[in-house]
């Protein structure tokens, strides 16, 4: 169940040049979101941009929704310029979030991917081993909060500006090789395509279970337009069918994803 509803901007703060934290107050009754779900947010005042933009729920209290996002193009730039007191419209909560872990679990976040995983860390406080990597320290967002919510944290950056220098998947491999018992824990991940691809090899070779949140261009967000599909392995003709990221996802089992 999801709704189309107006929200009032409570605050809109830039974390650094590229990243923003947007807090909004729903002006009508809403349905509480689950970790991994997302909303479609109004991205302009007129018809250009036309289409709402998908953002993961980053934080939710009663009558307050928070989104953490990177300014990429015109839609997110519009959102970054909204002002306290203004009203925009949202659709949500949308999609199938992360299936809740049953005990300890592993979280692997790449950069802004933390936005989607944070509600999971919050809901299951101190249950997660967190792997958080980014290009540089500027893109390690809400690092302290994330680490505090985790049982244990591993940090890396491509340029070494914070944590280990290198890819976060490297730290993850080291970890499961020295802690083989952890291969039984479910993995939750959200990050760039290269990260997901590398991870899928690791997950496969260690026979682990991994839930990945993926992205595709979206128009409706509710499964109506069939615009946001990814290839998912199954028994149908040619061994796959197209599944919508907005309704069947955004979280899929990593092993079922077929990369283009």
């Amino acid at each position, binding site marked *: 169940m999801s709704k189309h509803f107006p929200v009032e901007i409570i605050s809109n703060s830039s974390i650094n040049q590229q990243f923003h934290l947007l807090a909004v107050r729903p002006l009508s009754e809403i349905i509480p979101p689950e970790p991994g779900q997302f909303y479609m947010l109004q991205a302009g005042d007129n*018809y250009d941009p036309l289409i709402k933009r998908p953002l993961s729920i980053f934080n939710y209290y009663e009558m307050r929704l928070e989104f953490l996002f990177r300014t990429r193009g015109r839609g997110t730039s519009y959102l970054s310029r909204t002002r306290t007191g203004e009203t925009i419209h949202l659709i949500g909560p949308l999609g199938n979030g992360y299936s809740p872990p049953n005990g300890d679990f592993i979280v692997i976040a790449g950069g802004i991917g933390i936005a989607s995983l944070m509600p999971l860390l919050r809901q299951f406080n101190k249950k997660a081993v967190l792997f958080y990597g980014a290009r540089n320290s500027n893109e390690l967002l809400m690092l302290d909060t994330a680490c505090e919510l985790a049982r244990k944290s591993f940090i890396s950056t491509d340029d070494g500006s914070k944590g280990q220098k290198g890819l976060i998947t490297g730290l993850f491999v080291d970890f499961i090789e020295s802690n083989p018992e952890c291969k039984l824990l479910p993995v939750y991940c959200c990050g760039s395509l290269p990260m997901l691809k590398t991870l899928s090899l690791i997950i496969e070779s260690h026979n682990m279970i991994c839930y990945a949140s993926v992205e595709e261009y979206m128009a*409706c967000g509710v499964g109506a337009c069939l615009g946001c599909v990814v290839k998912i392995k199954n028994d149908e003709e040619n061994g796959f069918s197209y599944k919508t990221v907005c309704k069947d996802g955004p979280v899929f089992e990593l092993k079922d994803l077929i990369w283009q």
Partner: protein
Amino acid sequence: MAMNSAQIAQPSLSVQIASLNLKNPIITASGTFGYGEEYSGFIDIERLGAIVVKGLSITPKKGNPPPRIIETPAGMLNAIGLQNIGIAVFINDKLPFLRQFKTPVIANFFGDTVDEYIRAAEALSNANGVHALEMNVSCPNKEASWCVFGTNPETLSHVVSMVRKVTRLPLIVKLSPNVTDIGLMARVAEDSGADAISLVNTLTAMCVDINRRKPILANITGGLSGPAIRPVAVRMVWEACKAVKIPVIGMGGIMNFKDAIEFLIVGAKAIAVGTANFVNPLATIDIIEGIEKYMIEEGFTDINQLIGSLKI
């Protein structure tokens, strides 16, 4: 005062499309409203004039690889590739849900061959809960040669007459805007037995990724929809209305009641809301209410007074 407001009678919005009586002229555009379920949590399906479902074929279609959509200035491009569950699954899994509502269901369908069109029309005509057929002869994003059905008078005439023979349901032919003379195509559909025509389908278009120097859509070209195309759609609907006597269903870029009224004024008996659903899932309801209000303000008691009221 109470007297006064009681005197303002609710205007009548009901329109007739062939044997179909719609409580209001607002319908959903095929492919933008799924099979109804997707939006049933947002709006009361009962309030719609009719509901048109995603295009169906006799066998299920996987559709095109992604990317399938891309936003454009005041519009969007899509090349879904007519992905659908097939008519059999539609009848089994989706129709029971739609039968709950009093709103008429219009089944949009297509085929790769004349034979597939005929089989699809037959299968849908026998289904309990399908009230009319909308024939998509105009999908621009398939490469197959049947694409010419909608852009060539002879093939259009042939496929429409063949389908006409196998169904007694109201038959709506959905025209392509990618033609030189839309009035001619409308007349051909009428002469071949259509009970109504609908237009416009999407305009064939293309976007290029300048960094990869490749088309953005996997299908190369796609169909342009949304407010960007509205002025072209209004012109074509106007020309079609002048060309035929059967009812015309207008669509293309309708975002709000004002846009809808433009189509009604040029002669459309009903209008369909497409891309707007994505932007505002309540668009159809907002449009119904907006038209009602406009009619009261402008002193119309029956929507048929408004339809075709263009003064030249």
